[in-house]
């Protein structure tokens, strides 16, 4: 392990839960969404939006993770992810073992949290406690913070269209 095993994580809330994704995967955050819904798409696609001339497909993360509707808080924050080619062209993200997809995708979340440093050693790979609400495939690991658990998302699985939502 190199000393730089600490990485920055972008955190956000879905209902009462705190989630995190590596900040190197994040392109930008947009509020005041002007979403256009699209007919016939899978239920976890919230719609599309115009980000300065680029069309971003917005994934309703709560639906994707099969959260109950009533657990959801305020809407309207979107974390726009870097595309896989943006990652490849960026030397700082070469060390990442996570990948996004080629399309421009945003994640619809309830509330944006802080950016937290996470030490690789503190990540618990297989959480013992069974949280039935969340499919294990979507979780890379959890980090025990002083007051709550930070759930690190397995983005490749979340973005994979092959993965069925049960």
């Amino acid at each position, binding site marked *: 392990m190199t000393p730089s095993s600490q990485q920055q994580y972008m955190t956000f809330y879905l209902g009462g839960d705190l989630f995190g994704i590596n900040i190197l995967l994040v392109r930008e955050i947009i509020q005041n969404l002007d979403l256009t819904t*699209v*007919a016939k*798409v899978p239920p976890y696609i919230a719609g599309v939006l*115009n980000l300065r001339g680029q*069309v971003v497909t917005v994934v309703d993360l709560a639906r994707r993770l099969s959260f109950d509707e009533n657990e959801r808080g305020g809407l309207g924050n979107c974390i726009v992810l870097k595309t896989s080619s943006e990652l490849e062209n960026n030397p700082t993200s070469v060390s990442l073992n996570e990948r996004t997809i080629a*399309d421009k995708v945003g994640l619809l979340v309830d509330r944006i949290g802080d950016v937290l440093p996470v030490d690789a050693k503190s990540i618990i790979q297989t959480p013992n406690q069974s949280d039935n609400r969340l499919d294990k495939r979507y979780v890379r690991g959890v980090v025990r913070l002083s007051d709550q658990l930070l759930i690190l998302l397995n983005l490749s699985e979340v973005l994979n*269209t092959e993965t069925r939502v049960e």
Partner: protein
Amino acid sequence: MVDNELIGIFIQESKEHLEAIEPEILAMESASHDSEGVNTIFRGVHSIKGSSGFFGFEQISKLSHVMENLMALVRDGQLSPNSEMVSVLLASTDKLKLMIDDPQHCAEVAIEDEVKQLNTFLPAAKGGTKPAQDKGEPAPKQVKLPDSLKRFRLDPYILKNAMQHGHLVFVIRLFMNKDVKEKGRTPYDYFKEIESLGEFVDAYFDFSSISGLDDALSTDLVCSFLFTTVMGSPDMITSVFDIPAAQVEEIEAGVIKEWLGTNPGVQTPEGREAEVFLEVVEDDSGPASDAGHEPDKAEDEDHLASTDHLAVKASSAPAARMKVKRADETIRVNVSLLDSLMNLAGEMVLSRNQLIRIAENHGQEIAGLQSIIQNINLVTSDMHEKVMQTRLQALGIIFGKFTRIIRDLAMKLGKEIILDIEGEDVELDKSIVEALSDPLTHLIRNCADHGIETPEERERMGKPREGRVRLTAKHVGGQVLIEIIDDGRGMNPEKLRQKAIEKGVLKPEEAAKMSDRQALTIIFLPGFSTAEKVSDVSGRGVGMDVVRTNIEGLGGFVDIDSEVGVGTRISLRLPLTLAIIPAMIVGSCGRRFAVPQVNLEEVVRLGGKNKPEIIRGSRVLRLRDSLLTLINLADVLELTPQEGERGGASDWEDGYVLVLNLDNNQYGLIVSELLDSEEIAVKPLSVYLKQVGCYSGVTIMGDGKVAMIVDIQGIATMARLKFAENEINEQSALDLANQLRSSDSESLLLFRNEGLELFAINLSTVARIERIKASDIEHIGKGEYLKLGGRSLRLVRMHDHMPIAKPEQTPEDLYVLVPKLLTKPIGIVATQIVDTVQTVVDLDRETISGVGILGSTFINDALVLLVDIYSLFESVDPEVFRPVAYPEHFKNLRVLLVDNNVFFRTVEGDFLRRLFGEVVGVRNAAQAWEKLSEENFHVVISDVELPGTSGFDLCAKVRHSERYKHLPFIGLSARQDPNHEVLAKETLMDAYQMKFDKVKLLRLIESIFDRKTPRLTQS
């Protein structure tokens, strides 16, 4: 030092040279060859020679050097190009291409043959056939050259040229470390610099200064360049190249002249003429005073006239060459840079739109704002257009190579083919041009291989020996139309049908149903190739379907037209650019969608006379003579209108119908609103949206909102609209209707035969309705015939055979109803098509009867006569339609006829009753089973598509019963469906066939009873 990047540039540049050279070499053979073309070749090979020599690619340099020598002679009029020379030059160009693709390994390519062949054209190698004036000349004596010149390959032409213009000749020496590396330059930079100052002659690396490995690291490697230049003094050279004077050496003109004296290279019969000629060549690239230009020109033409070959050119295409582009007017830009420029320009347009909208409200408040906005508006539009243009590429880039392909193929196949190319300057988006290369190559090869006949064959047919292939491109209504037309043997639709059946690509009945024009499209079916035998030229069976897929992938269409013995025309329609397309913006349930204009034929407003009708459960619109199947966009996308929004069910009443064209099929897409017609920038779909299947892209509208682009095909598929290949609309409506049908109601076509009598015919028995003129009808003997799709169709006037009113006179405009699937179809003449209705027929067989009349019924309170086409046709042509000899023992057989359709039950029943002892008709499988268990039958004839239990299920049930497992069972169907045949086999039906063809049905029954002994099943 010579790194990969530089080699990359070398490869790219050399390829461009080769591309420019090839058409000129080809042109040398034809009349259209001129001195500028020859010069292009010369310069091209010269440049390749120079740069390859610089990189040390010996083989490339050697071959191009010989080519250069040959071209110099051609240019100077000492050699006349002939087809042999052209072939060798082409072969050499190929070798160059091969080596340039992988220059590092060029030494592995054998070029001896080419070099030898090229040398045979050079006078020196001709031995005994030396030109006369050479004879008296003294043997060339060796001139003592300065040491610095010894290792260079001297080029007499360039040197002579330089001498004539008073240019100086220099040798410069560059130290790789000191001059190149430390100054952050590349040797190639120097090379380019030299080319800009004058003419590069040769270069070499001096490895002799390195004595060993250790030395190699410390010694600065020296590269020497020999070049001619307009620069007047060594000082200028030192300052231009930023090297010490010691590294520059001027070669005395005297030395060069002396050398030239013994190595003339350019052997001119008369010095003066050669000078003039050189002057002319120089004209295009160098400084030449305008004064005195005209007389030169005149002399030039005189000179050209002295050799036949050039003379032709001088008169035929003097102007065409004038617009040759200068290479240095362009710069090289990375395509990805253009892509992002285009994206930025797109964003700018959107921001401009937003700005305009916001500024609208403040125009009065801020002085001058309005005019600034106006300006920004114009500049942005202009800029966007220009950026789009940067991506446009002329088709000439790919058209150029076809001359060569045709030439090679013609030689290989022993044919004589002329390729005419038009519209090379038509421009398309770069990505489209690139993607077109393969499909076009395939089509051109096909023309030469299959289309054009051998010269002998052509002469026999009274055609000129030379076949012509025309490749044209032109703008047609916002699209580019590319056509490949040959005057070859054409395609025989009948042959195509047979072949398709043989190969199992099509079913016989499907093939039979196709019109000749449709049959031509068989070649686009996967797994079909017309090649009698597979050749290495074309025809591996993966051709035309791939062509079609590729073209359609680009948003284009392919069409084909051919006439046997006359030729074939294949047309490709392509969008100008993939990124921007004209579209109609429509609304449904508060959402906006873009529909590509390419697919849009017309728009019809519903309401008033334009009311959708229901035919067997599917809605159709009567549009002039055809029925248009309708799809409501809101239904397909499962949209429901919110408060205050228009859309959904109400659109059936007052929406808009977009008449969309899809591979010669049409359907109507119903939307609520028409909003705008604009050019939209197509953005790709994300993977999530792609899998929906009904969108083809996404776009950003002027107000910054996102709108989906509707996928015309996807919507149709989603609505389960199955277009039987090129079937007319009535059929597709019916197919849909058939799938949906659940009741006993039938669709009837109401028509008149002059007078007030209304006639009805079951719509599913009609294959087509043709609108004709009375004058189209041909009279042969007593019969009337109509030419239809290459065949003669016999016509019948109902009043000639049926007990109905005879018209006083027939109008000029007539309709012909062509019945489906008859061995020998007869068209029924009608004067007016009244309507189609969906109704439950209450057939009255008593009141009105007679030949051709099935009975009467009331539809919408009007009396309608149902036409029995079988008895009508029997009366028209008894020989074909009356079964003459059927076995007597049929009279003893009992038949169970199962059909839910009263019309068929009556017609088929009538017919069967004349053959068999007894025919019992029932409506469905349940009734049939009841009858079967109560009574005994010899044969069951059943519709396969019964309401509830299908005919197949009934058959399976029969087969499973101990009592009836051997009972002959015949399935009938009103429509063609490949699944039916499979099911028929699976359920062990004795036979399965189309309804309506009773002659076939009879033969079928006979053949079944030939195999099976008819016996009464025992209870």
